[in-house]
């Protein structure tokens, strides 16, 4: 049994294969948006390099968003076509939640934020629930304490503040491409409110940092899509290819404007 995992929602393309023992191989592309060119060859390479026959894959796990609309569509349309032609199920992996798997031993709050432009972020907040056993479903092991959505940064921080208080946590780790533009504001806010704050970029591969704090990446990565995908697979969160939808979290601009125009009339 093995799953193929696809991650195309961010600036860096990656694919991974994972077996039932949670053994993972991940291939990562060079940074840059040429996912359409590179995705299919990379899937071909990772299966060949690991002596896997694509036709023997058990299901296709895809990071379905939020993120770059174009990136999401490259991943989801590839996953749909693979699932359709290989006659296997697809797994719609929520991209923000995959970041919990970047730091599986961290017990603070995991906060991925993506730059959504128009002064917004796609953000969520998660933590690992110590009380759930290893075999509990992902939904019981990971708590989503800020609902994944598009937020103005201020609104996101307001939600995060409430969630941190409710869950009795006082530290969080920030991930994603939203950290570059919004990190300084978040750091200031954390200081004012007395929260400990980690910037995942500064902890990456740093040998002086406690292993539990060391993330596998600060951006989207297929290895985490594979881990969450495997948990979802075990839970039976499987879709027919036609049911596999992108998670845009935002209407198309033209639809929004048309709606506003209709409402104004």
């Amino acid at each position: 049994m093995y799953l193929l995992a696809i991650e195309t929602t961010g600036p860096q393309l990656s694919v991974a294969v994972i077996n039932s023992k949670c053994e993972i191989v991940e291939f990562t592309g060079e940074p840059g948006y040429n996912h359409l060119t590179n995705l299919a060859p990379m899937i071909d390479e990772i299966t060949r390099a690991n002596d896997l026959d694509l036709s023997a894959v058990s299901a296709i796990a895809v990071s379905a968003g939020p993120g770059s609309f174009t990136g999401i569509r490259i991943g989801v349309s590839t996953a749909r076509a693979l699932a359709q032609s290989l006659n296997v199920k697809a797994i719609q992996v929520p991209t923000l939640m995959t970041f919990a798997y970047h730091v599986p031993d961290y017990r603070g709050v995991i906060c991925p934020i993506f730059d959504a432009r128009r002064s917004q972020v796609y953000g969520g907040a998660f933590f690992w629930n110590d009380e759930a056993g290893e075999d509990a479903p992902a939904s019981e092991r990971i708590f989503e304490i800020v609902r994944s959505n598009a937020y103005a940064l201020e609104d996101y921080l307001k939600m995060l503040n409430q969630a941190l208080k409710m869950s009795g946590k006082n530290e969080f780790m920030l991930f994603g491409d939203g950290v570059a533009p919004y990190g300084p504001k978040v750091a200031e806010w954390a200081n004012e409110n007395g929260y400990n704050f980690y910037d995942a970029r500064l902890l990456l591969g740093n040998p002086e940092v406690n292993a539990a704090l060391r993330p596998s990446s600060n951006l989207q990565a297929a290895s985490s899509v594979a881990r969450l995908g495997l948990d979802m697979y075990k839970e039976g969160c499987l879709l027919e290819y036609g049911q596999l939808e992108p998670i845009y979290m935002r209407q198309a601009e033209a639809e929004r404007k048309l709606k506003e125009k209709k409402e104004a009339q």
Partner: protein
Amino acid sequence: MASHYGKVIKMKDGKFLTMAIESSCDETSVAVLADGRTILSNVISSQIEIHTQFGGVVPEIASRHHLNNINAVTEQALSDAGVTMDDIDLIGVTAGPGLIGALLIGVATAKAYALAKKKPLVGVHHIQGHISANYLQYPELEPPFLALVLSGGHTNIIYVTDYNKCEVLGQTRDDAIGEAYDKVARVIGLGYPGGPKIDKIAKEGNPHAIEFKRVMLEKDSLDFSFSGIKTGVLNYVNTERQAGREINVADVAASFQQAVLDVVVTKAMKAAADRDEHRLVLAGGVASNSALRAQLAAACAKRGIALYVPDPVLCTDNAAMIGCAAYYMYKAGEVSDLTLDAVASVPL
């Protein structure tokens, strides 16, 4: 069993089967062809009603709908053809030009099918596809011939020397002909899509009511320019409105259309004379325009030129034409690998 084409379904039966995908604009289409020239299925899912409310094709919305539709359209095309994906020998896909977000759905999907089923893949130029529609309509047609490609994104006079070889003799320097129709339709309040709407109302108007300028460019040029006539119509409408006169929409539509068609027909005939070519094929969405068909037919008849005009379903964006082009490319040894990219703009 009968297919959509009223023929008995041909199962694989030793035939070379091409499955093709087209998603360059607002039609999601998948087709299956036997031996490159026989259509077993050609499913077209149009988004035109969705885009009409926005006054034109919205790329982001087109991309979202392509993604939602493409797998079901594929399923339908295979089932209409009475074959499975395992039976397919070749996968063809439009790689450009077109809307990049729309194209990439087709390309990503085609690559995934090719990878999963270990099938050869061919990326097709959209215009090559439009020209190839004529091979499907006319089984005896072979190159060389002259092609007039007229659509929302393209305006070309092309000398087709072989199935995969051609020479662009003329092209638009600004707006495509279909784009000019859309813009003028908006100016005179007809809305989107402009082509069929202008074609229809023009039948009730006087084509010589207003003499819009025929832009012929340099004496020997086979190029086109349609941005001027759009401005001409806009100026005319504004002048009339400022003077408090009501415009006659049918007359404006008919006069605009006549000005455009005069240029197109003149240039097509000049190209035929230049090359001493007696076969002219029409291709692209605008090839469905009734006035164009009639005037071109009359001009061709006068000069002893055979005019080839595909059925409207083969003029619109469709995957069958892409499959035909892919088949001849494959036969000539042109194969794409899995790095195939979608490109918004690419020379023929």
